[in-house]
C-alpha cells in the first residue's frame, strides 16, 4: 500500500450543488467565480479539514452572505434573521452553529474511495479574527474550486473549496 501519495479529492461543482441542495432542502444554483480573497473588508467563514493524522488537507471558505444564507436555510430561519449578521459583519451564535453543521456534512464531499478520509477540524466563523496560517491556506492557488452560489429564497454568496 502506498502511503502519502494519495491525493485529496477536489469536489466538482455538481458535487457541491448536490450537497448544498440536499442539505438546505432547495435547489441551489452555482456558477464559477474568480478566487475568493478573504480580507478584513471581506470577512468569510473558513472550515478546516484534516485527515486521520490531523494534517490539514483542505479548507472551505464561505463569504459572509453565503455563511448567513446557508446557516439560515438549513434551519428554515426567516430571511430577516440574516440582516443583522450582514450589517454587523459577522455571524451570531445560532448562525455560526448552523454553519458548522453545513460544513461538517460537507466533509462527505472529500470522502470518495481511494482518497484520504477528511473531517471538519475547526470552523472560524466570519467576523472573528482568522488565524494567519488559516488565512494563508485560503489563498492557495492550484487545486481549488471557486463558485458563486445562489440559495433560493435567501440570496447569493461565494464559496471556495481549496486543497492545501
Amino acid at each position, binding site marked *: 500500500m502506498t502511503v502519502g501519495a494519495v491525493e485529496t479529492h477536489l469536489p466538482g461543482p455538481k458535487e457541491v450543488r448536490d*450537497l448544498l441542495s*440536499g*442539505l438546505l432542502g432547495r435547489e441551489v444554483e452555482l456558477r464559477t467565480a474568480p478566487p475568493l480573497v478573504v480580507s478584513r473588508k471581506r470577512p468569510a467563514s473558513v472550515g478546516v479539514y484534516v485527515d486521520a493524522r490531523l494534517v490539514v488537507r483542505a479548507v472551505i471558505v464561505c463569504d459572509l452572505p453565503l455563511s448567513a444564507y446557508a446557516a439560515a436555510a*438549513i*434551519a428554515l430561519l426567516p430571511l430577516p434573521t440574516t440582516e443583522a449578521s450582514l450589517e454587523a459583519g459577522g455571524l451570531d451564535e445560532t448562525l455560526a*452553529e*448552523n454553519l*458548522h*453543521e453545513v460544513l*461538517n*456534512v460537507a*466533509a*462527505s464531499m472529500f*470522502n470518495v*474511495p481511494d482518497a484520504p*478520509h477528511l*473531517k471538519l477540524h475547526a470552523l472560524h466563523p466570519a467576523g472573528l479574527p482568522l488565524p494567519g496560517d488559516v488565512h494563508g491556506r485560503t489563498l492557495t492557488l492550484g487545486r481549488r474550486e471557486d463558485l458563486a452560489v445562489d440559495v433560493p429564497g435567501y440570496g447569493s454568496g461565494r464559496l471556495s473549496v481549496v486543497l492545501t
Partner: protein
Amino acid sequence: MKILVADDSRVMRQIVIRTLRQAGHGGHDIVEAENGRQAVELVQTEAPDLVLSDWNMPEMNGIDALLTLRGAGNAVPFGFVTSEGSDEMRARAEQAGAAFLIAKPFTPEAFDEALTGVGLVAS
C-alpha cells in the same frame, strides 16, 4: 412509537425530526441526545423503539454507543444518520448490529425506505 435522535448538532436533530415527519412518520414520541453516552443512558431509561444516531459525536461516538448497547444485551433497532457513508463505515455499522445507515444530506424518501425496509414502521 418512541424514537431517540442522537446528534451533537441541535439543528441536525431538528432536521432529522422534520424529515421523519415529511417522510410520513410524524406523531412519534421523540427523545433527543447530544452524544453517544447520553444516548446509551436514555436508551436504558426511556426504552425507545428505535435509535437514529449520528456517527461522530463528542463524549462517545455513535458506533461505540451501539457496541455498548449490544454489549449490555440491548437489542433496540439502531440506525445511523451520518455524513460517513463510505463502504467501510457501512460495513462497520452492519457488523456492529446497525439496521441501516442513512447518509447526510438525506431525503424524506431515504428515511422512509430505511424505516420501512427493516420493518420498523408500516409503509
